[in-house]
């Protein structure tokens, strides 16, 4: 009985799932990505990890802080029903910075939270990425940050997976 019901459900929903967004999967970390991905990886990283990358960076550039680091608010929006009309849920703290290297490249950073040092250094890394000679170095830093993030995500997924209910149908003796 139970098996019959769940089969019917799956038939109906298989068609629907084609159109549905998949759960977020982790990107392969060999690829640092374009500027958008670089900035995202820096934003997602912990301040301590970025500070460590900076400390290890050979040939630290001279730079001027053009704006910030300053902390402000971003109003987070959701969608009614999950996919419908947007509505404002509440604000989050965000810290941003803009720096200019002595060689002229301009770097920006935006990240959740109030970590001014992280904002400043992330903007410097963004500016360095725009210098051809330094791009590979920045990408290597980013790949390291993404690998750490990927590992942390995997741990969360596996801990959650351990709490998955595995239903099984009881086979009665009359069969």
């Amino acid at each position, binding site marked *: 009985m139970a098996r019959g019901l769940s089969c019917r459900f799956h038939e109906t929903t298989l068609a629907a799932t084609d159109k549905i967004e*998949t759960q977020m999967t982790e990107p392969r970390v060999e690829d640092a990505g374009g500027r958008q991905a670089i900035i*995202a990886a820096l934003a997602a990283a912990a301040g301590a990890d970025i500070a460590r990358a900076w400390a290890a960076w050979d040939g630290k550039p001279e730079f001027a802080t053009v704006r910030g680091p300053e902390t402000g608010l971003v109003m987070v929006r959701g969608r009614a029903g999950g996919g419908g009309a947007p509505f404002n849920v*509440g604000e989050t703290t965000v810290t941003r910075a803009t720096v200019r290297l002595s060689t002229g490249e301009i770097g920006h950073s935006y990240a959740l939270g109030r970590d001014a040092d992280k904002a400043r250094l992330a903007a410097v890394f963004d500016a360095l990425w725009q210098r051809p000679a330094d791009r590979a170095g920045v990408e290597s830093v980013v790949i390291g940050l993404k690998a750490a993030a990927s590992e942390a995500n995997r741990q969360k997924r596996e801990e959650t997976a351990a709490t998955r209910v595995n239903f099984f149908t009881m086979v009665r003796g009359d069969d």
Partner: protein
Amino acid sequence: MYVAVKGGEAAIANAHRLLADRRRGDRSVPALRLDQIIEQLGLAVDRAMGEGSLYDRELAALAILQARGDLIEAIFLVRAYRTTLPRFGYSTPIDTGKMLIERRISATFKDLPGGQLLGPTFDYTHRLLDPTIAEAAEVEAGERRDADEEPAPRVTDLLAGEGLIEPDGIADSDEVGDLTRSPLEFPLDRDLRLQALARGDEGFLLGLAYSTQRGYARSHPFVGEIRIGEVEVELDIPELGFAVSLGRIKVTECQMVNQFKGSAKAPPQFTRGYGLVFGQAERKAMSMALCDRALRAREFGEDLAGIAQDEEFVISHLDNVQSTGFVEHLKLPHYVDFQAELDLVRRMRGEYEAAQAADPEASLQEAAE
């Protein structure tokens, strides 16, 4: 009328000092750190963020510490702090379909794609106080199993395939209301109601939600889905020319599914309530979803059977900072007001006694009437 209070300066200074002393408590006991509050009282932090309407764990933890654990006082502190920061913009709407899920359950479908993932829930505990928790013993890490890549689509999207459930809410206009920028004017559109509900007092909304189940609104709700986890927050940056991901926040989303027999306006179908709050706040998200549905009575042409469906009542009283502002203002000096009241009552009393003395029978009759 408020009277200026003079001569209280020294008393107030000493009161603040006493407050700081009581807040710290016994000096031989180690002081609380913010990281302890964030890690070990996480759900209090989530509530202070959600109702304070500011997602920042350190600030919420500091507020809780400063408020000595009084969460509404902490929420007040968080709300006040928000006013000191400039607004950078509005995020693009978050996509809960792409959530890094920590918990995901459905009461409507047992075996659904993505599975029932219990997560760190109290649901199956026996609610027995456990003294071992206070002994600071070693706690094991969570068990880990291979996580397959099976996607977890929204339950409401699955039902939508058969056309039996109303679609996600669509707005009449592109404008998104923001109650932090303009005063509320009734009747409200759903976007403003959802914003108000998201920051509303959990207890108030819980009571109203319960009332809808007890018959003060004709609803027959099911939990279509609850999911808790992290979602990306993105912001469009003009100087970059693209949207940046700012990082991830944790949210709780609840889809309530209600039976609906149909009306002149709409065919029989399932109707929905939606809850979305910061952090892990399941009870609040469920209550928000039930209240959201109740407040949509007008849309469905339903009779108003309960106070939870009364938009002006619910929205005007759900903000605990606003509520406590007016309730607690009663403590302010109202001396002159009260003198006037005292005189009035004395005069009325005098008239009453005079009437009693003159004609006891008649005045009793009058009083009875």
